[in-house]
């Protein structure tokens, strides 16, 4: 929120410089996001008195002698049509900074430094300036909008800095206000805090006015009191629509509000000053002498001031006259009752609307205004009542209308008087952990206008009605410490707390172990969004009835690409691989450990299953099916379990290079090479491999005990076998037959695969090293021979494989 220092000074005699004020606001909870001098780009511009002014023949230029008091007298070449001898104008001295303008003299193109110039052969030692060149608009200083020189008052002191004259020495504070303090969403609201933190008296804005005895027949009713707890209206007549006075236009300009006419400006001024949105209806356009606040009828229409038409629903609140809607409550007035130059009487409105309703309506209709933004944050009734008085005072001050005796204040009985709050000082200090001296507590709360009375441990306060946030001792503690100063907090380390055992759970430990193991296997951990795109499901060619297509939808996603909760981690991994390849990285390994989301019902009526899953991606000419299989094995090794693999097929993986992963016979995932078609679709240059493992299914193995197996006491025996068999027989089949043939086998390792015409058509050979580990006694050669024979016999019988000769 923009707060001009000059405006704040109406209510507090601020006795500190802007930097100190910024610090003070910051320390009590109001961060100043930006602070700047209004004329921060302007320097060395002084009041110049034009002594002589002569036309330069055949040009539009004038050659002037300009007196700048103590700075000297300068020859200035000036093209403005309103330069005149005897006039006082802003003179930018050599070295001054002002705004540079385009040829139209209106568009600012940056800041320039004034140097000695020469125009048509005439030297100029400075520049006489327009309003635009000084960043002063017509609203900020009357006459500044003229496309020529800005005319300074006759009594301006020659040679004096122009900044104070033009208000350029004012400061603007852009204050950020937390959502618990809607009462500070105004200049006066901030002034209250400034007065409290600087411990200075607060001056109230003038609220007085005189009612005439004029009355008119009129009625105000509120049908929707749940959405409108307070509605005040006041009839003002003999209205003269004119331009607002300079001071009001200037203030509105400083806070970014443009001046329209005195009546409209008054409502905007009160909004900025007190934080209460107000509205003025042109009385002559209100039909049937009535106002009613009600929910809109479904399908009812209104055209707002900005000439947009809205079709309303029962959820929208409208202000109606006796016949039709005349305003979208809290958002914007209707075009049909707009204040015009011809307006001669108005009905002022100051109301409190339920902020949630305004928020929803404003969002649903896509219509935002200063008023709706303000209502959304919350308006208090204290201010609603005060604002009407302030507006009526301004009507009188601006002499633009007469305040009648016809007025209405419909309310639900809420008091605008201070409310009582009792707390224990011990409890307040108990929150803080320090003991703030009683006198400081009383002083701080007095400054906040809480009227504290301390009796023993009991603190009784009368909280102003605008402080709706004050409810408990914790709220009081915060008020005390933010004013007392957080630097008084003494760090302690939970001395009263019981000792607790902390640290990771078994599951957390195992997950960290898995991640580290995967890193050691050369994979980088990636993290992808928990939501993905419907097109990701198409990318992996899932059929219409695939369970993965039953995904939870976001109602309000940022865009369609982030609109589904993921049901598989693979597509994002494939996309990540493609992105890397596009950047020229042609080899790498990535893994992700994250959740996929399996709904138990749609739409959600209970928590969905958030399943921890590991996804692995590998790509590059140096990778193949077996290298990603190796990474999957890392998971098994880390958990000290065994995986088995079976050939399978899958919609997005190579028809012959895909396996399902089993653990204890249970399918827990898959791995394989990504289809070439998908690689082409994503412009990949090297093959890609993906694996996905259901980590949740492995949690039952997390607690597996690690036991040491003593080294063998007797010598192990190793035998190599090379079998010839049908091509279709898998390595796993052979291994199983070998393993089942002898209980002493401790390892079987494949060391060669060969296919060649010499073996016969559709034949291949597999060579294994088999290790026999003795248990209780040493093997005899005869025993080993027995093992070997048994293996040969089983392999031949069960698989038809023979020893290669």
């Amino acid at each position, binding site marked *: 929120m923009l707060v001009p220092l000059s405006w704040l000074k109406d209510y507090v005699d601020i006795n500190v410089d802007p930097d100190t004020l910024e610090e003070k606001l*910051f320390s009590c*909870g109001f961060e100043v996001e930006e602070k700047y001098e209004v004329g921060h780009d302007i320097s060395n511009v002084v009041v110049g008195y034009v002594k002589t002014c002569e036309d330069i023949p055949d040009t539009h230029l004038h050659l002037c002698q300009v007196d700048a008091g103590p700075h000297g007298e300068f020859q200035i070449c000036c093209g403005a049509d309103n330069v005149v001898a005897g006039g006082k104008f802003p003179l930018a001295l050599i070295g001054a900074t002002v705004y540079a303008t385009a040829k139209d003299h209106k568009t600012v193109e940056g800041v320039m430094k004034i140097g000695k110039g020469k125009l048509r052969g005439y030297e100029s030692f400075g520049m006489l300036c327009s309003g635009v060149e000084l960043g002063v608009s017509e609203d900020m200083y009357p006459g500044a909008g003229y496309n020529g020189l800005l005319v300074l008052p006759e009594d301006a002191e020659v040679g004096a800095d122009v900044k104070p004259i033009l208000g350029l020495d004012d400061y603007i504070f852009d204050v950020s206000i937390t*959502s618990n303090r809607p009462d500070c969403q105004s200049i006066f609201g901030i002034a209250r805090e400034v007065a409290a933190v600087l411990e200075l008296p607060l001056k109230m804005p003038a609220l007085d006015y005189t009612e005439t005895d004029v009355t008119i027949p009129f009625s105000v009713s509120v049908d929707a009191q749940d959405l409108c707890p307070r509605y005040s209206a006041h009839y003002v007549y003999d209205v003269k629509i004119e331009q607002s006075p300079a001071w009001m236009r200037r203030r509105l300009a400083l806070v970014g509000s443009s001046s329209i006419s005195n009546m409209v400006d008054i409502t905007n001024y009160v909004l900025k000053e007190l934080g209460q949105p107000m509205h003025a209806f042109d009385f002559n356009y209100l039909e049937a002498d009535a106002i009613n606040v009600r929910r809109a009828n479904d399908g009812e229409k209104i055209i707002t001031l900005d000439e947009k038409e809205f079709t309303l629903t029962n959820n929208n609140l409208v202000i109606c006259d006796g016949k039709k809607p005349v305003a979208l409550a809290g958002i914007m007035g209707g075009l049909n009752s707009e204040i015009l130059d011809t307006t001669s009487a108005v009905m002022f409105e100051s109301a409190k609307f339920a*902020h*949630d309703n305004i*928020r929803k309506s404003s969002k649903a209709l896509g219509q935002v205004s200063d008023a709706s933004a303000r209502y*959304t944050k*919350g308006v208090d009734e204290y201010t609603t009542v005060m604002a009407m008085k302030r507006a009526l005072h301004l009507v009188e001050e601006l002499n633009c209308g007469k305040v009648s005796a016809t007025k209405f204040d419909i309310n639900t009985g809420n008091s605008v008087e201070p409310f009582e709050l009792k707390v224990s000082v011990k409890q307040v200090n108990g*929150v*803080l*952990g*320090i003991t703030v001296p009683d006198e400081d507590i009383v002083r701080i709360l007095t400054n906040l206008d809480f009227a504290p009375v301390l009796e023993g441990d009991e603190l009784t306060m009368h909280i102003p009605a605008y402080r709706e946030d004050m409810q*408990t001792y*914790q*709220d009081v*503690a*915060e008020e005390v*410490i*933010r004013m007392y100063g*957080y630097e008084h*907090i*003494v*760090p*302690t*380390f*939970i001395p*009263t*707390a019981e000792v*607790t*055992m*902390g*640290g*990771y*759970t078994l599951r*957390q430990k195992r997950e960290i172990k898995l991640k580290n193991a995967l*890193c*050691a*296997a*050369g994979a*980088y*951990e*990636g*993290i992808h*969004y*928990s*939501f993905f795109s419907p097109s990701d499901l198409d990318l992996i060619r899932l059929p219409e009835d695939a369970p993965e297509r039953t995904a939870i939808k*976001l109602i*309000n996603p940022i865009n369609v690409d982030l609109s589904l*909760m993921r049901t598989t981690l693979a597509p994002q991994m494939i996309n*990540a691989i493609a*992105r*890397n390849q596009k950047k020229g990285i042609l080899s*790498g*390994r*990535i*893994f992700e450990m994250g959740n996929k989301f399996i709904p138990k019902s749609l*739409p*959600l*009526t209970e*928590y969905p299953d958030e399943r921890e899953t590991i996804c692995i991606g590998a790509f590059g000419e140096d990778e193949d099916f077996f290298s990603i299989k190796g990474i999957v094995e890392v998971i098994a090794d880390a958990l000290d379990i065994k995986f088995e693999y079976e050939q399978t097929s899958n919609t997005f993986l190579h028809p012959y290079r895909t396996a399902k992963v089993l653990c204890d016979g249970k399918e827990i995932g898959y791995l394989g090479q990504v289809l070439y078609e998908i690689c082409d679709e994503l412009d990949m240059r090297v093959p890609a491999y993906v694996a996905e493992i259901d980590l949740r299914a492995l949690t039952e193995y997390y607690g597996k005990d690690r036991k040491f197996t003593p080294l063998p006491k007797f010598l192990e025996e190793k035998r190599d076998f090379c079998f010839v068999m049908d091509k279709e027989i898998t390595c796993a089949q052979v291994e199983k037959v070998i393993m089942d043939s002898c209980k002493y086998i401790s390892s079987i390792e494949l060391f060669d695969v060969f296919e060649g015409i010499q073996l016969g058509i559709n034949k291949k050979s597999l060579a294994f090293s088999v290790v026999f580990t003795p248990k209780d006694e040493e093997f005899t050669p005869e025993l080993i021979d027995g093992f070997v024979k048994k293996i040969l016999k089983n392999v031949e019988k069960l698989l038809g494989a023979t020893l290669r000769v």
Partner: protein
Amino acid sequence: MTELNELSEKLSAIKQEIKNELVNLTSSKSVFEYRKNIMDSKTGKIGSLMKEMGKIPKELKADYGKKVNEIRNWAQAEFEALDNKLKEAEMRAKYESEKIDVTLPAKKLKKGNLHPNTQVRNQLVDIFGSMGFNIYEGREIETDYYNFTALNIPQDHPARDMQDTFYLSPEYLLRTQTSSGQVHVMEEQKPPIKIVSPGKVFRSDDDATHSPMFTQMEGLVVDKGITLCDLQGMLDVFVQKIFGEETKTRLRPSYFPFTEPSVEVDVSCFQCHGCGCRLCKGTGWIEILGAGVVNKSVLEGCGIDSSVYSGIAFGIGIERVAMLKYGINNIKNLFESDLRVLDQIDD
């Protein structure tokens, strides 16, 4: 006597022959072969000399043996010397032939890193774990009640506007803060409670410093007599471990619906140590986390007696710490799995 003279002559001849031959040997291999040849006990010119001993008269045997030994020792020494000389040359030649350019690139080992978020998360969790905190991982999909209502943010509360929430149904949503886990913990456990809760959170926000998904870590202590001083003390320890021992904290008032008082916690800039630099935008302080004393209505909502127990809580953005600590300038870098990014951070 003549036998001895003959022998002397024969030995001289052998000696001369060996001398002549040695000059022609140029490799240790040929020395080995020649030596084997000469020393062979059956056919070797020196090796076979002892075979002759039988023919030598008894009285001359001693002299004969002596002379044969002499020439044998001489020959062995000659062979040894030549062999050493040639071997040395051969080694030198071998080394010479294996000359390399040591500045050629190293053989690349496959390497991987934990994600920067995980690295920061592990560091944070380790610190709090050692202080007796348990780690609680909540759900990513939450109900409106746990994410908002139970945290003192009722339906029409303006604080709901502070966070743009992704809804999945009128009741279910993507959690906007890990604070949602607080309530589950307080419902399930009785004080004393000390937990940190790291996890993914979601807000409808998308620019260079905001990502629609990011990571927070919530901390919560509930016990008897817990105060704002404890909050600062705990956070002091934490920031010193993460950002260095000289790091200081500064509390300033703020607002979160579930804490009262609420504070923003700034740390003294760990780059310029408070002098003012680009990282801290010249202020000497960096905003790092939000915290406060748990609002008693939140405690009571979870069935905890606020007249006996009080609590402190904080929430920190993991990406924010990662970006500050490692100088990452765009949060998007963290979610794209670009290996050029992931390769850089190995803390």
